[in-house]
């Protein structure tokens, strides 16, 4: 994944492909591919920003009352608020003013917390990243081996157990799982803390174990099913039969198959990310973890529109970046794609 990116990086700001002297043949098509994808993503982000802004514009509720409270306020105070939030400007003027500020990294001021939105989000993003990262790690190291061993022994008891567990993880909503685990491990057998994020690195990880496990159950279920399906398909391919008949050790055969199976697995990254984002909002709410998910949930309830807008755009951006990385990873994983994309 890092290779094509590293090749593209030094010349990335707007330079049209051809003048990358050290490796013109490799670097430039990748760069062109990357530019096309980035352009597509920018268009989608623009549309999303317009849609969210429209949504916020149409949102019911009186911002002035929200800010000044229900007490009768002086006309000057009301006028000041209306001017600060551009409430009297036409829609498009407001949108482009907001977009201009946003492009410069200024997403306005949180209505609820009276702090710059970027600051509010920056203070929360670390916890969410840690939670998602830990969950992803747990899912990866449990689900991929389970998927492989299930596929290798398809139809056996072990496969059935694994598939049943995956079915459970896939079907159980995160909030139900979260509460069941909370009930079991924080109330019945109090091993783990019930809520909060903890202080210091070790305490933080300790606090994140339960929520991350909840997320990892769903993630792992998706990963395991994809791994199993892809591996079953690969293991029944002719090249595997041939390799086995030549006496290639089973471990090595599985490694070969896994490499080919990795492409459909990576393609599922979008599905996984979608699940992860939805799940994070729920899990952070249940475990009272002050991350982005809880922030969004609170911002929606309090009609803190600038924060909602910024989070929606942030999520869209993250998803877009992952999608581009997935595209680039095909180049690394599949020599056929590499040949096709780089020759043309």
């Amino acid at each position, binding site marked *: 994944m890092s290779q094509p990116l590293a090749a593209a990086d030094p010349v990335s700001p707007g330079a049209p492909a051809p003048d990358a002297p050290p490796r013109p043949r490799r670097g430039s098509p990748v760069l062109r591919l990357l530019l096309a994808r980035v352009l597509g993503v920018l268009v989608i982000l623009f549309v999303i920003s317009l849609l969210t802004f429209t949504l916020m514009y149409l949102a019911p509720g009186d911002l002035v009352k929200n800010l000044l409270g229900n007490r009768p306020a002086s006309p000057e105070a009301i006028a000041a608020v209306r001017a600060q939030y551009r409430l009297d400007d036409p829609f498009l003027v407001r949108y482009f003013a907001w977009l201009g500020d946003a492009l410069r990294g200024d997403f306005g001021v949180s209505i609820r917390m009276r702090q710059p939105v970027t600051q509010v989000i920056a203070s929360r993003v670390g916890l969410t990243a840690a939670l998602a990262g830990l969950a992803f790690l747990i899912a990866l190291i449990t689900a991929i081996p389970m998927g492989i061993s299930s596929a290798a022994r*398809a*139809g056996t008891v072990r496969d059935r157990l694994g598939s049943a567990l995956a079915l459970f993880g896939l079907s159980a909503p*995160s*909030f139900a799982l979260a509460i*069941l685990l909370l009930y079991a491990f924080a109330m019945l057998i109090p091993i783990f803390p019930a809520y909060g994020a903890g202080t210091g690195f070790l305490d933080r990880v300790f606090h994140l174990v339960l929520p991350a496990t909840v997320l990892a159950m769903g993630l792992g279920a998706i990963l395991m099913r994809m791994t199993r399906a892809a591996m079953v398909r690969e293991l029944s391919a002719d090249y595997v039969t041939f390799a086995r*008949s030549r006496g290639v050790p089973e471990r090595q055969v599985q490694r070969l198959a896994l490499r080919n199976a990795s492409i459909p697995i990576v393609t599922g990254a979008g599905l996984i990310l979608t699940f992860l984002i939805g799940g994070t909002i729920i899990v952070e709410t249940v475990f009272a973890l002050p991350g982005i998910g809880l922030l969004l949930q609170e911002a*929606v309830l309090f009609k803190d529109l600038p924060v909602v807008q910024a989070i929606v755009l942030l*999520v*869209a951006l993250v998803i877009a970046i992952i999608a581009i990385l997935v595209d680039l990873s095909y180049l690394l994983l599949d020599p056929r794609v590499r040949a096709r994309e780089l020759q043309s």
Partner: protein
Amino acid sequence: MTAPVSPKTASVVLPKRARPDWLVRISVVFLALIALGAIVSPFLVEAASTQSILDALLPPGSPGHLLGTDELGRDVLLLTVAGTGSAVVGPALIALGSMSLGVLFGTLAGYQRGWLDALIGRIADVLLSLPVMLLAIVVAGIFGAGYWVTVLLLIVLFAPSDIRIVRSGVLEQAPRPYVEAAQMLSLSPWRIMYVHVAPNVWPLIATNLLLNTSIALVTLSSLSFLGVGVAPGSADWGRQISDGRSVMADNPAMLLAPALLIVLVSMAINVIGDQITERLRRKGIR
């Protein structure tokens, strides 16, 4: 390689079954029971909301209250059964609605191609670029949408993936001889699309319908757990779990019953969905 291989074993390379038949049967029976619960649930709402402060927070197994009562003295068993309606009807409607939109626009895009295809494709791209859960929380939360509006919103949000699936199926059907024959008879494009082509995409739709129902069940109950899309105090599984958190120590059944039911319903739907997918694959349709 050299040994004569009978065509049957050579061509039919099937993933082995991971699920026994009895599980499918149990799932069907269980879902039938849930459907029954959904049918009777509207008649139970009144009984379920009978409050009595004297009986508040009875533990499970109390006389007259099998699963105990909540902090308002409402019977948890009745409350859970009364919640079946909103828990199951919404998701079924979401799956059916998004499937209808999928067939309508997917067939149109796949058969007509051109600018219509491009337009539908771009709209789907934008909707798919954000997670359904996030969009639903933001839109339904900010507008304070009620249950039916939330269901409508989810129909729209679920539609893009259905549109894509139907479109890809129609693309594969379009060059077939029967379509050409229909065109030769100068049947109207609408008739060709929805009477001749669309039914052939049915297997693709059927499996996705069940998958969508279980995702919708999880999404809708997650939303009502977060307090989006349901009125406070109404009988709803997600809501009940959320309310049950504060009385977890006194009456755990209040949240365990609906949580378990959501998991079981979703699992049953997935079991049947997997079974259908497998059967179709066996027939060589997918």
